[in-house]
Protein backbone atom coordinates (compact mmCIF):
# COMPACT_ATOMS: atom_id res chain seq x y z
CA UNK A 1 0.00 0.00 0.00
CA UNK A 2 1.43 3.46 -0.88
CA UNK A 3 2.69 5.27 2.21
CA UNK A 4 0.42 8.40 2.00
CA UNK A 5 -2.63 6.14 1.68
CA UNK A 6 -1.53 4.09 4.68
CA UNK A 7 -1.05 7.24 6.79
CA UNK A 8 -4.42 8.61 5.65
CA UNK A 9 -6.24 5.38 6.52
CA UNK A 10 -4.52 5.21 9.91
CA UNK A 11 -5.55 8.78 10.67
CA UNK A 12 -9.10 8.17 9.44
CA UNK A 13 -9.35 5.29 11.89
CA UNK A 14 -7.60 7.09 14.76
CA UNK A 15 -9.86 10.14 14.43
CA UNK A 16 -12.93 8.10 13.55
CA UNK A 17 -15.46 10.05 15.62
CA UNK A 18 -14.68 13.48 14.26
CA UNK A 19 -14.48 11.99 10.76
CA UNK A 20 -17.80 10.21 11.17
CA UNK A 21 -19.45 13.40 12.39
CA UNK A 22 -18.05 15.35 9.45
CA UNK A 23 -19.19 12.66 7.05
CA UNK A 24 -22.75 12.75 8.43
CA UNK A 25 -22.88 16.54 8.25
CA UNK A 26 -21.59 16.47 4.67
CA UNK A 27 -24.21 13.83 3.79
CA UNK A 28 -26.96 16.06 5.17
CA UNK A 29 -25.58 19.09 3.35
CA UNK A 30 -25.42 17.18 0.09
CA UNK A 31 -28.97 15.94 0.61
CA UNK A 32 -30.22 19.51 1.02
CA UNK A 33 -28.28 20.49 -2.12
CA UNK A 34 -29.87 17.57 -4.00
CA UNK A 35 -33.33 18.48 -2.72
CA UNK A 36 -32.96 22.07 -3.90
CA UNK A 37 -31.56 20.88 -7.20
CA UNK A 38 -34.44 18.42 -7.65
CA UNK A 39 -36.96 21.19 -7.02
CA UNK A 40 -35.24 23.44 -9.54
CA UNK A 41 -35.12 20.56 -11.98
CA UNK A 42 -38.86 19.98 -11.63
CA UNK A 43 -39.66 23.68 -11.95
CA UNK A 44 -37.48 23.77 -15.06
CA UNK A 45 -39.23 20.73 -16.44
CA UNK A 46 -42.65 22.25 -15.80
CA UNK A 47 -41.75 25.54 -17.45
CA UNK A 48 -40.24 23.67 -20.40
CA UNK A 49 -43.52 21.83 -21.07
CA UNK A 50 -45.43 25.09 -20.76
CA UNK A 51 -44.86 26.23 -24.39
CA UNK A 52 -46.65 23.15 -25.71
CA UNK A 53 -49.81 24.20 -23.87
CA UNK A 54 -49.51 27.92 -24.38
CA UNK A 55 -51.00 29.86 -27.29
CA UNK A 56 -52.08 33.38 -28.27
CA UNK A 57 -55.60 33.74 -29.64
CA UNK A 58 -56.12 36.24 -32.45
CA UNK A 59 -59.75 37.15 -33.15
CA UNK A 60 -60.63 38.32 -36.67
CA UNK A 61 -62.99 41.07 -37.64
CA UNK A 62 -66.24 39.96 -39.23
CA UNK A 63 -66.83 39.90 -42.93
CA UNK A 64 -63.31 39.26 -44.17
CA UNK A 65 -62.88 37.57 -47.52
CA UNK A 66 -61.04 34.25 -47.80
CA UNK A 67 -57.99 35.81 -49.48
CA UNK A 68 -57.78 38.44 -46.73
CA UNK A 69 -57.86 35.67 -44.12
CA UNK A 70 -55.09 33.80 -45.94
CA UNK A 71 -53.04 37.00 -46.01
CA UNK A 72 -53.46 37.38 -42.26
CA UNK A 73 -52.40 33.75 -41.70
CA UNK A 74 -49.30 34.33 -43.81
CA UNK A 75 -48.48 37.56 -41.93
CA UNK A 76 -48.90 35.81 -38.58
CA UNK A 77 -46.62 32.98 -39.67
CA UNK A 78 -44.03 35.51 -40.80
CA UNK A 79 -44.20 37.56 -37.65
CA UNK A 80 -41.58 35.87 -35.54
CA UNK A 81 -41.34 32.70 -33.46
CA UNK A 82 -44.67 31.17 -34.51
CA UNK A 83 -44.86 27.39 -34.45
CA UNK A 84 -48.35 26.81 -35.79
CA UNK A 85 -51.43 28.82 -36.73
CA UNK A 86 -54.79 27.02 -36.58
CA UNK A 87 -57.81 28.43 -38.32
CA UNK A 88 -61.14 28.16 -36.48
CA UNK A 89 -64.11 29.65 -38.32
CA UNK A 90 -66.86 31.36 -36.35
CA UNK A 91 -69.22 28.41 -37.08
CA UNK A 92 -66.63 25.97 -35.84
CA UNK A 93 -66.08 28.13 -32.76
CA UNK A 94 -69.80 28.08 -32.00
CA UNK A 95 -69.93 24.31 -32.50
CA UNK A 96 -67.05 23.85 -30.08
CA UNK A 97 -68.72 26.18 -27.58
CA UNK A 98 -71.94 24.19 -27.78
CA UNK A 99 -70.00 20.98 -27.29
CA UNK A 100 -68.25 22.32 -24.26
CA UNK A 101 -71.53 23.55 -22.77
CA UNK A 102 -73.11 20.08 -23.24
CA UNK A 103 -76.31 20.12 -21.17
CA UNK A 104 -76.37 23.87 -21.00
CA UNK A 105 -76.55 24.29 -24.77
CA UNK A 106 -79.76 26.28 -24.39
CA UNK A 107 -77.61 29.26 -23.34
CA UNK A 108 -76.57 29.83 -26.94
CA UNK A 109 -79.66 28.18 -28.48
CA UNK A 110 -81.71 31.37 -28.59
CA UNK A 111 -79.15 33.48 -30.48
CA UNK A 112 -80.22 34.78 -33.89
CA UNK A 113 -76.76 35.11 -35.20
CA UNK A 114 -73.34 33.73 -34.30
CA UNK A 115 -71.71 36.29 -31.95
CA UNK A 116 -68.32 34.64 -32.08
CA UNK A 117 -65.36 35.71 -34.17
CA UNK A 118 -63.23 33.68 -36.50
CA UNK A 119 -60.08 33.03 -34.52
CA UNK A 120 -56.53 31.79 -34.81
CA UNK A 121 -54.95 30.00 -31.88
CA UNK A 122 -51.25 30.75 -32.46
CA UNK A 123 -48.85 28.34 -30.78
CA UNK A 124 -45.30 29.59 -30.31
CA UNK A 125 -41.86 28.16 -30.65
CA UNK A 126 -40.55 26.85 -27.31
CA UNK A 127 -37.94 29.58 -26.82
CA UNK A 128 -40.46 32.39 -27.43
CA UNK A 129 -42.74 31.60 -24.50
CA UNK A 130 -41.68 34.35 -22.11
CA UNK A 131 -43.57 37.43 -20.90
CA UNK A 132 -41.56 39.93 -22.96
CA UNK A 133 -41.54 38.07 -26.27
CA UNK A 134 -45.22 37.09 -26.05
CA UNK A 135 -46.20 40.66 -25.25
CA UNK A 136 -44.18 41.90 -28.20
CA UNK A 137 -45.74 39.34 -30.55
CA UNK A 138 -49.26 40.04 -29.28
CA UNK A 139 -48.66 43.75 -29.89
CA UNK A 140 -47.57 43.18 -33.47
CA UNK A 141 -50.59 40.91 -34.13
CA UNK A 142 -52.93 43.58 -32.76
CA UNK A 143 -51.59 46.08 -35.31
CA UNK A 144 -52.42 43.80 -38.26
CA UNK A 145 -55.32 44.74 -40.49
CA UNK A 146 -58.31 42.46 -40.01
CA UNK A 147 -57.44 41.43 -36.45
CA UNK A 148 -60.05 42.56 -33.95
CA UNK A 149 -58.43 41.47 -30.70
CA UNK A 150 -55.58 39.40 -29.31
CA UNK A 151 -55.73 37.55 -26.02
CA UNK A 152 -53.27 35.48 -24.02
CA UNK A 153 -52.77 34.62 -20.36
CA UNK A 154 -50.53 37.59 -19.59
CA UNK A 155 -50.97 37.40 -15.83
CA UNK A 156 -50.53 33.63 -15.82
CA UNK A 157 -47.39 33.95 -17.91
CA UNK A 158 -46.00 36.68 -15.66
CA UNK A 159 -46.71 34.75 -12.47
CA UNK A 160 -45.19 31.54 -13.83
CA UNK A 161 -42.15 33.48 -14.90
CA UNK A 162 -41.75 35.19 -11.54
CA UNK A 163 -42.25 31.89 -9.67
CA UNK A 164 -39.55 30.28 -11.83
CA UNK A 165 -37.14 33.21 -11.45
CA UNK A 166 -37.81 33.38 -7.69
CA UNK A 167 -37.26 29.66 -7.20
CA UNK A 168 -34.12 29.71 -9.30
CA UNK A 169 -32.70 32.61 -7.31
CA UNK A 170 -33.56 31.09 -3.92
CA UNK A 171 -32.33 27.71 -5.11
CA UNK A 172 -29.04 29.08 -6.35
CA UNK A 173 -28.49 31.00 -3.10
CA UNK A 174 -29.34 27.91 -1.04
CA UNK A 175 -27.09 25.71 -3.15
CA UNK A 176 -24.22 28.18 -2.90
CA UNK A 177 -24.66 28.38 0.88
CA UNK A 178 -24.83 24.60 1.24
CA UNK A 179 -21.87 23.96 -1.08
CA UNK A 180 -19.85 26.52 0.90
CA UNK A 181 -21.04 24.76 4.05
CA UNK A 182 -19.84 21.36 2.85
CA UNK A 183 -16.49 22.83 1.79
CA UNK A 184 -16.24 24.50 5.20
CA UNK A 185 -16.91 21.20 6.99
CA UNK A 186 -14.14 19.48 4.98
CA UNK A 187 -11.94 22.51 5.60
CA UNK A 188 -12.44 22.49 9.37
CA UNK A 189 -12.06 18.70 9.65
CA UNK A 190 -8.78 18.71 7.77
CA UNK A 191 -7.65 21.81 9.68
CA UNK A 192 -8.32 20.05 12.99
CA UNK A 193 -6.48 16.93 11.78
CA UNK A 194 -3.65 19.16 10.54
CA UNK A 195 -3.32 20.92 13.92
CA UNK A 196 -3.46 17.63 15.78
CA UNK A 197 -0.52 16.45 13.68
CA UNK A 198 1.32 19.77 13.70
CA UNK A 199 4.29 18.34 15.56
CA UNK A 200 4.51 15.43 13.14
CA UNK A 201 4.36 17.84 10.20
CA UNK A 202 7.16 19.94 11.67
CA UNK A 203 9.27 16.79 12.01
CA UNK A 204 8.47 15.78 8.44
CA UNK A 205 9.54 19.21 7.23
CA UNK A 206 12.82 18.93 9.12
CA UNK A 207 13.44 15.49 7.62
CA UNK A 208 13.14 16.98 4.15
CA UNK A 209 9.57 16.09 3.18
CA UNK A 210 8.20 18.01 0.21
CA UNK A 211 4.92 19.92 0.35
CA UNK A 212 3.25 17.20 -1.71
CA UNK A 213 4.48 14.49 0.67
CA UNK A 214 2.98 16.40 3.63
CA UNK A 215 -0.25 17.33 1.89
CA UNK A 216 -1.14 14.04 0.20
CA UNK A 217 -2.41 12.10 3.26
CA UNK A 218 -4.61 15.05 4.28
CA UNK A 219 -6.04 15.42 0.79
CA UNK A 220 -6.77 11.68 0.77
CA UNK A 221 -8.51 12.02 4.13
CA UNK A 222 -10.57 14.98 2.91
CA UNK A 223 -11.50 13.09 -0.26
CA UNK A 224 -12.52 9.97 1.67
CA UNK A 225 -14.64 12.00 4.11
CA UNK A 226 -16.25 13.96 1.26
CA UNK A 227 -16.86 10.89 -0.86
CA UNK A 228 -18.20 8.88 2.09
CA UNK A 229 -20.60 11.77 2.77
CA UNK A 230 -21.63 11.65 -0.89
CA UNK A 231 -22.19 7.89 -0.82
CA UNK A 232 -24.21 8.18 2.38
CA UNK A 233 -26.39 10.95 0.96
CA UNK A 234 -26.91 8.84 -2.16
CA UNK A 235 -27.94 5.88 0.01
CA UNK A 236 -30.39 8.05 1.97
CA UNK A 237 -31.82 9.45 -1.28
CA UNK A 238 -32.19 5.93 -2.65
CA UNK A 239 -33.92 4.76 0.52
CA UNK A 240 -36.23 7.80 0.33
CA UNK A 241 -37.00 7.03 -3.32
CA UNK A 242 -38.01 3.43 -2.72
CA UNK A 243 -39.70 3.83 0.65
CA UNK A 244 -41.52 7.14 0.19
CA UNK A 245 -41.34 8.68 -3.26
CA UNK A 246 -42.30 5.68 -5.40
CA UNK A 247 -45.26 4.94 -3.12
CA UNK A 248 -46.42 8.57 -3.17
CA UNK A 249 -46.11 8.69 -6.98
CA UNK A 250 -48.39 5.67 -7.23
CA UNK A 251 -51.06 7.13 -4.98
CA UNK A 252 -50.93 10.94 -5.01
CA UNK A 253 -51.82 12.35 -8.48
CA UNK A 254 -49.77 15.54 -8.02
CA UNK A 255 -46.66 13.47 -7.28
CA UNK A 256 -47.00 11.73 -10.66
CA UNK A 257 -45.79 14.90 -12.36
CA UNK A 258 -42.75 15.18 -10.05
CA UNK A 259 -39.59 13.64 -11.47
CA UNK A 260 -36.86 12.10 -9.28
CA UNK A 261 -33.60 13.00 -11.06
CA UNK A 262 -31.83 9.71 -10.52
CA UNK A 263 -28.77 10.56 -12.64
CA UNK A 264 -28.06 13.58 -10.50
CA UNK A 265 -28.09 11.51 -7.32
CA UNK A 266 -25.58 9.16 -8.91
CA UNK A 267 -23.20 12.12 -9.03
CA UNK A 268 -23.32 12.72 -5.27
CA UNK A 269 -20.21 10.63 -4.37
CA UNK A 270 -18.21 12.49 -7.04
CA UNK A 271 -19.55 15.85 -5.83
CA UNK A 272 -18.61 14.86 -2.24
CA UNK A 273 -15.14 13.87 -3.40
CA UNK A 274 -14.65 17.17 -5.25
CA UNK A 275 -15.84 19.25 -2.30
CA UNK A 276 -13.66 17.17 0.07
CA UNK A 277 -10.55 17.79 -2.01
CA UNK A 278 -11.37 21.49 -2.33
CA UNK A 279 -11.91 21.85 1.43
CA UNK A 280 -8.66 20.01 2.21
CA UNK A 281 -6.60 22.09 -0.19
CA UNK A 282 -7.98 25.32 1.27
CA UNK A 283 -7.32 24.05 4.81
CA UNK A 284 -3.73 23.09 4.07
CA UNK A 285 -3.03 26.43 2.43
CA UNK A 286 0.59 27.27 1.91
CA UNK A 287 3.15 25.10 3.64
CA UNK A 288 6.17 27.22 4.37
CA UNK A 289 9.70 26.10 4.98
CA UNK A 290 11.04 29.52 5.97
Amino acid sequence: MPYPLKIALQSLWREKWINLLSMLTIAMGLLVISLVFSSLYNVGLFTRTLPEKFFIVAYLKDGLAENEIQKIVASIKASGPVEKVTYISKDEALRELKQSLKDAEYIVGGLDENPLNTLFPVSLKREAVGPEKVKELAGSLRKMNGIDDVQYGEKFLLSIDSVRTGMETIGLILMTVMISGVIFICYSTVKILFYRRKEEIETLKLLGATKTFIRTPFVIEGSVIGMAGGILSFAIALAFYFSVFSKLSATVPLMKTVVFPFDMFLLLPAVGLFLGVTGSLIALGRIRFE
Partner: protein
Amino acid sequence: MITFEGVSKYYDTTTALRNITLSVGRGETIFVTGPSGAGKSTLLKLIYAAEFPDTGRVTVDEWQSDRRNGSNIPSLRRNIGIVFQDFRLLGNRNVYDNVALALRVRKVPEREVKAHVLDALKMVNLRHKTDSFPPALSGGEQQRVVIARAVVGDPIIVLADEPTGNLDPDTAAGIMRIFKEINARGTTIVIATHNRELFRDTGKRVFRLDNAAVASEERG
Protein backbone atom coordinates in the same frame (compact mmCIF):
# COMPACT_ATOMS: atom_id res chain seq x y z
CA MET B 1 31.12 21.08 2.53
CA ILE B 2 29.84 23.61 5.12
CA THR B 3 30.89 27.26 5.12
CA PHE B 4 29.88 30.15 7.34
CA GLU B 5 30.91 33.56 6.00
CA GLY B 6 30.48 36.42 8.47
CA VAL B 7 27.21 34.98 9.72
CA SER B 8 25.21 36.80 12.37
CA LYS B 9 21.82 35.88 13.77
CA TYR B 10 19.61 37.99 16.02
CA TYR B 11 16.43 37.20 17.91
CA ASP B 12 14.75 40.53 18.60
CA THR B 13 17.30 42.29 20.77
CA THR B 14 19.36 39.16 21.56
CA THR B 15 22.39 38.28 19.48
CA ALA B 16 22.46 34.49 18.94
CA LEU B 17 25.53 34.42 16.68
CA ARG B 18 27.92 37.20 15.76
CA ASN B 19 30.11 37.29 12.70
CA ILE B 20 30.82 33.55 12.52
CA THR B 21 33.26 32.42 9.86
CA LEU B 22 34.21 28.76 9.67
CA SER B 23 34.32 25.88 7.24
CA VAL B 24 33.99 22.13 7.56
CA GLY B 25 35.54 19.84 4.97
CA ARG B 26 33.91 16.82 3.34
CA GLY B 27 34.16 13.75 5.57
CA GLU B 28 35.37 15.78 8.54
CA THR B 29 34.05 15.56 12.09
CA ILE B 30 33.95 18.78 14.10
CA PHE B 31 32.67 19.64 17.55
CA VAL B 32 30.94 22.85 18.56
CA THR B 33 31.04 23.48 22.26
CA GLY B 34 30.31 26.20 24.72
CA PRO B 35 28.03 27.00 27.63
CA SER B 36 24.23 26.89 27.35
CA GLY B 37 22.95 29.79 25.27
CA ALA B 38 26.27 30.23 23.48
CA GLY B 39 24.60 29.63 20.08
CA LYS B 40 25.45 25.95 19.41
CA SER B 41 21.88 24.93 18.46
CA THR B 42 21.43 28.07 16.37
CA LEU B 43 24.59 27.23 14.44
CA LEU B 44 23.22 23.78 13.64
CA LYS B 45 19.81 25.21 12.71
CA LEU B 46 21.51 27.52 10.23
CA ILE B 47 23.02 24.45 8.56
CA TYR B 48 19.71 22.62 8.13
CA ALA B 49 17.85 25.82 7.24
CA ALA B 50 15.57 25.95 10.24
CA GLU B 51 17.00 29.44 10.73
CA PHE B 52 18.53 31.87 8.28
CA PRO B 53 21.36 34.36 8.79
CA ASP B 54 20.52 38.02 9.24
CA THR B 55 23.90 38.89 7.79
CA GLY B 56 26.48 36.75 6.01
CA ARG B 57 26.00 33.50 4.14
CA VAL B 58 25.83 29.81 4.96
CA THR B 59 26.81 27.36 2.22
CA VAL B 60 26.05 23.65 2.54
CA ASP B 61 27.34 21.61 -0.38
CA GLU B 62 25.68 23.46 -3.30
CA TRP B 63 22.97 25.13 -1.23
CA GLN B 64 23.37 28.79 -0.28
CA SER B 65 21.29 30.53 2.36
CA ASP B 66 20.95 33.68 0.27
CA ARG B 67 19.56 31.72 -2.68
CA ARG B 68 17.03 29.67 -0.76
CA ASN B 69 13.52 28.96 -1.91
CA GLY B 70 10.59 26.72 -1.00
CA SER B 71 11.85 23.77 -3.01
CA ASN B 72 15.59 23.72 -2.32
CA ILE B 73 15.18 23.65 1.47
CA PRO B 74 13.55 20.15 1.53
CA SER B 75 16.22 18.83 -0.83
CA LEU B 76 18.97 20.30 1.40
CA ARG B 77 17.43 18.62 4.43
CA ARG B 78 17.25 15.28 2.64
CA ASN B 79 21.02 15.46 2.37
CA ILE B 80 21.39 15.99 6.10
CA GLY B 81 20.70 13.55 8.94
CA ILE B 82 19.77 15.36 12.13
CA VAL B 83 19.99 14.11 15.69
CA PHE B 84 17.68 16.53 17.45
CA GLN B 85 18.22 17.47 21.07
CA ASP B 86 14.53 16.82 21.77
CA PHE B 87 14.55 13.65 19.61
CA ARG B 88 11.44 14.58 17.58
CA LEU B 89 10.27 10.97 17.44
CA LEU B 90 6.63 10.33 16.55
CA GLY B 91 5.05 8.75 19.61
CA ASN B 92 2.24 7.09 17.66
CA ARG B 93 4.58 5.26 15.24
CA ASN B 94 6.78 2.36 16.16
CA VAL B 95 10.55 2.39 15.97
CA TYR B 96 10.54 0.87 12.49
CA ASP B 97 8.18 3.51 11.08
CA ASN B 98 10.06 6.34 12.78
CA VAL B 99 13.30 5.29 11.13
CA ALA B 100 11.59 4.47 7.83
CA LEU B 101 10.18 8.00 7.69
CA ALA B 102 13.60 9.35 6.70
CA LEU B 103 13.59 7.01 3.69
CA ARG B 104 9.99 7.64 2.77
CA VAL B 105 10.53 11.40 2.52
CA ARG B 106 13.41 10.51 0.19
CA LYS B 107 10.95 8.46 -1.91
CA VAL B 108 12.93 5.25 -1.46
CA PRO B 109 10.81 2.37 -2.83
CA GLU B 110 8.97 0.49 -0.07
CA ARG B 111 10.65 -2.81 -1.02
CA GLU B 112 14.08 -1.28 -0.20
CA VAL B 113 12.98 0.50 2.96
CA LYS B 114 12.89 -2.60 5.16
CA ALA B 115 16.46 -3.71 4.53
CA HIS B 116 17.84 -0.19 5.11
CA VAL B 117 15.85 0.32 8.31
CA LEU B 118 16.88 -3.03 9.76
CA ASP B 119 20.54 -2.31 8.91
CA ALA B 120 20.36 1.08 10.65
CA LEU B 121 18.68 -0.42 13.71
CA LYS B 122 21.27 -3.17 13.82
CA MET B 123 24.01 -0.56 13.79
CA VAL B 124 22.53 1.16 16.87
CA ASN B 125 21.85 -2.23 18.46
CA LEU B 126 18.06 -1.83 18.47
CA ARG B 127 17.12 -4.52 15.96
CA HIS B 128 14.96 -6.17 18.63
CA LYS B 129 12.93 -2.99 19.26
CA THR B 130 11.42 -2.49 15.80
CA ASP B 131 7.85 -2.84 17.02
CA SER B 132 8.24 -0.77 20.19
CA PHE B 133 6.83 2.71 20.46
CA PRO B 134 9.12 5.59 21.52
CA PRO B 135 7.37 6.35 24.84
CA ALA B 136 8.17 2.78 25.93
CA LEU B 137 11.92 3.24 25.29
CA SER B 138 14.60 4.57 27.62
CA GLY B 139 16.32 7.90 26.89
CA GLY B 140 19.38 6.12 25.51
CA GLU B 141 17.27 3.90 23.28
CA GLN B 142 15.32 6.87 21.95
CA GLN B 143 18.60 8.63 21.26
CA ARG B 144 19.80 5.62 19.26
CA VAL B 145 16.54 5.50 17.28
CA VAL B 146 17.11 9.16 16.37
CA ILE B 147 20.63 8.33 15.25
CA ALA B 148 19.33 5.41 13.16
CA ARG B 149 16.79 7.75 11.54
CA ALA B 150 19.53 10.34 10.92
CA VAL B 151 21.86 7.92 9.13
CA VAL B 152 19.45 5.53 7.40
CA GLY B 153 19.14 7.72 4.30
CA ASP B 154 22.93 7.78 3.87
CA PRO B 155 23.16 11.59 4.17
CA ILE B 156 26.31 13.52 3.29
CA ILE B 157 26.15 15.40 6.59
CA VAL B 158 25.03 14.35 10.07
CA LEU B 159 24.27 17.04 12.64
CA ALA B 160 23.93 16.08 16.28
CA ASP B 161 22.67 18.47 18.91
CA GLU B 162 23.73 17.31 22.39
CA PRO B 163 23.57 13.66 21.33
CA THR B 164 24.62 12.33 24.71
CA GLY B 165 22.80 14.77 26.96
CA ASN B 166 21.40 13.05 30.06
CA LEU B 167 22.92 9.68 29.09
CA ASP B 168 25.17 7.59 31.29
CA PRO B 169 28.88 7.48 30.27
CA ASP B 170 28.70 3.95 28.82
CA THR B 171 25.70 4.75 26.60
CA ALA B 172 27.36 8.03 25.60
CA ALA B 173 30.52 6.15 24.62
CA GLY B 174 28.44 3.72 22.57
CA ILE B 175 26.79 6.60 20.71
CA MET B 176 30.13 8.22 19.98
CA ARG B 177 31.35 4.90 18.54
CA ILE B 178 28.38 4.97 16.17
CA PHE B 179 29.33 8.48 15.01
CA LYS B 180 32.89 7.30 14.43
CA GLU B 181 31.55 4.45 12.28
CA ILE B 182 29.37 6.81 10.28
CA ASN B 183 32.27 9.20 9.79
CA ALA B 184 34.43 6.33 8.56
CA ARG B 185 32.01 5.98 5.63
CA GLY B 186 32.88 9.54 4.57
CA THR B 187 29.96 11.37 6.17
CA THR B 188 30.63 14.87 7.48
CA ILE B 189 29.66 15.17 11.13
CA VAL B 190 28.97 18.23 13.25
CA ILE B 191 28.36 17.58 16.93
CA ALA B 192 27.20 20.32 19.27
CA THR B 193 27.89 19.43 22.88
CA HIS B 194 28.84 20.96 26.19
CA ASN B 195 30.35 17.61 27.28
CA ARG B 196 34.12 17.95 26.95
CA GLU B 197 34.60 14.21 27.40
CA LEU B 198 33.15 13.60 23.95
CA PHE B 199 35.95 15.35 22.07
CA ARG B 200 38.83 14.82 24.45
CA ASP B 201 41.73 13.12 22.65
CA THR B 202 39.79 12.73 19.41
CA GLY B 203 42.16 14.94 17.43
CA LYS B 204 39.14 16.59 15.80
CA ARG B 205 38.63 20.33 15.46
CA VAL B 206 36.62 21.90 18.28
CA PHE B 207 34.98 25.32 17.91
CA ARG B 208 34.24 26.90 21.26
CA LEU B 209 31.43 29.41 21.19
CA ASP B 210 31.09 32.04 23.83
CA ASN B 211 28.87 35.05 23.95
CA ALA B 212 27.53 34.27 20.41
CA ALA B 213 30.97 34.29 18.79
CA VAL B 214 33.74 31.77 18.10
CA ALA B 215 36.02 32.16 21.10
CA SER B 216 38.57 29.54 20.04
CA GLU B 217 39.32 26.78 17.57
CA GLU B 218 41.48 23.94 18.83
CA ARG B 219 42.06 20.22 18.43
CA GLY B 220 40.32 17.83 20.79
